[in-house]
């Protein structure tokens, strides 16, 4: 089975690339070597009152250097503590976790990231060799968008219209009449619902990266399940484990 380890990694760089949004580079050759786009790692806060790890998606993977880039938003005391780590600090990390994106056999891909769902799209954009339209949805402040430009044509939507199309990612797709044979999407559930609906309507297959509160991160505790079309072979009910069977699912396989 795929390698999965818990290590003490070293923080190499930590910068705030947006309001409350941090870019963390950590060094862990073992995890970096095994990692794929769409997978995530569990980061430990090291605080005695916050025991559970924080699942963070992989934004970039530099196997040669043994590095992983994690871009996350400070959502509470746990991520705030992680945001406080600096170069040289040790950080407990478990990974790589989850299935990652299925990158086989698509010719024209539409990558859709919304808010803090944007980071995992970056490594995917780097590794996906086919033609790519990249759609990034923000509330207002942009981040990471520049870094996508090298990998495809970037389309932006903002809720306040301060940049790109005013509205959401679907508005941006329609307005730019984007087409493709595979959608890759990560973002808030309402956005993913919209993407699933749009994909169905346009008959485009879509891979959605979901999130849910997790405890173990490896599929044992059954905290992070989502309703699925087929019964999950693991627990024999219509619940897939986001941390293990996912976080990436084909749209038609999950109810969101």
């Amino acid at each position: 089975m795929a390698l999965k380890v818990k290590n003490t990694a070293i923080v190499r760089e930590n910068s705030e690339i947006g309001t409350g949004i941090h870019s963390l580079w950590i060094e862990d050759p073992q995890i970096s070597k095994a990692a794929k786009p769409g997978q995530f790692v569990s980061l430990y806060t090291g605080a005695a009152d916050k025991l559970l790890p924080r699942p963070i998606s992989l934004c970039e993977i530099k196997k040669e250097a043994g590095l992983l880039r994690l871009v996350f938003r400070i959502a509470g005391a746990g991520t705030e503590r992680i945001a406080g780590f600096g170069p040289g600090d040790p950080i407990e990390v478990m990974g790589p976790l989850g299935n990652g994106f299925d990158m086989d056999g698509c010719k024209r891909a539409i990558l859709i990231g919304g808010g803090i769902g944007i980071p995992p799209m970056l490594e995917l954009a780097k590794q996906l060799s086919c033609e790519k339209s990249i759609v990034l949805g923000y509330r207002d402040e942009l981040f990471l968008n520049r870094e996508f430009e090298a990998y495809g044509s970037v389309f932006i939507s903002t809720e306040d219209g301060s940049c790109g199309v005013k509205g959401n990612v679907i508005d941006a797709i329609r307005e730019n009449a984007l087409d493709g044979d595979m959608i890759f999407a990560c973002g808030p559930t309402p956005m993913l619902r919209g993407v699933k609906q749009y994909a169905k309507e346009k008959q485009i297959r879509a891979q959605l990266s979901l999130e849910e509160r997790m405890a173990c991160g490896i599929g044992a505790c059954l905290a992070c399940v989502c309703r699925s079309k087929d019964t999950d072979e693991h627990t024999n009910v219509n619940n897939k484990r986001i941390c293990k069977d996912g976080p990436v699912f084909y749209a038609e396989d999950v109810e969101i």
Partner: protein
Amino acid sequence: MNLKVSIAGVEWKNPVTTASGTFGSGAEYSEFVDLGSLGAVTTKGVANVPWPGNPTPRIAETYGGMLNAIGLQNPGMEVFIRRDIPFLRQYDTNIIVNVCGRTVKDYIEVVERLSGEDVDMLEINISCPNVKEGGIAFGQNAKAVEEITAEVKRHAKQPVIMKLSPNVTDIAEMARAAEAGGADALSLINTLTGMKIDIKKRCFALANKTGGLSGPAVKPVAVRMVYQTAKAVKIPVIGMGGIQNAEDALEFIMAGATAVAVGTANFYRPDAAACVAEGLKAYMQEYGVEDINSLIGCV
């Protein structure tokens, strides 16, 4: 140096197992820990039919612990018997199957189905706080505890461990009731019913509103109840509640537990259970303890 303990005639190579629901059936954790290094593996609850569990969010972090309301999602006994028993049998450890149900009939169905299977012990969960029909009704009433214990014993081929709820006024009364019903051993504590509120959204942190509190935060309550239980009954006690290292485990053993279970710690230290077993050895070496059994209830 001896770490072996015997519970209801079953010998454990060391007094460490896993708390039901925190370790699946071991497969996921086998990537991080040698299951053969544990005295026993206690599985997630198994029912007669598949259970879908509760809506999400199912967990919430709390100060020094966590709340869970998984709702006993499980694949049902047939899948469990076909897939999990053969998997666990590859390892040199005891298999303890945690049994859950909505009615006495449900429990009995599972117990009977398992009677012909190659498992070492049964743990009857009459104390899940997250499913109204998850046994909590049984677990908080002494008469009901005695009755369901007696009924289970009537059909069980393997030794029966009754898992008690800490959400009671008098744990000793429940323990004596289980013993009177014929229980071969007791395990405690299950989780304490708790609640967390998201003050930004002004809603419950869990879809189920309440959940079971576990983790280091609850350890003092667990040690106290294990002490009171061990004093109240003659059958062996398996202690659990917030154990994350050997020092924690030793508190339970000295309070009267013959064995201990590692639970929530598995979620943040996948090799926690094995580390506890190792740590017990280290303590015995440092303090010149020949036999772990000499520490049971020594306080």
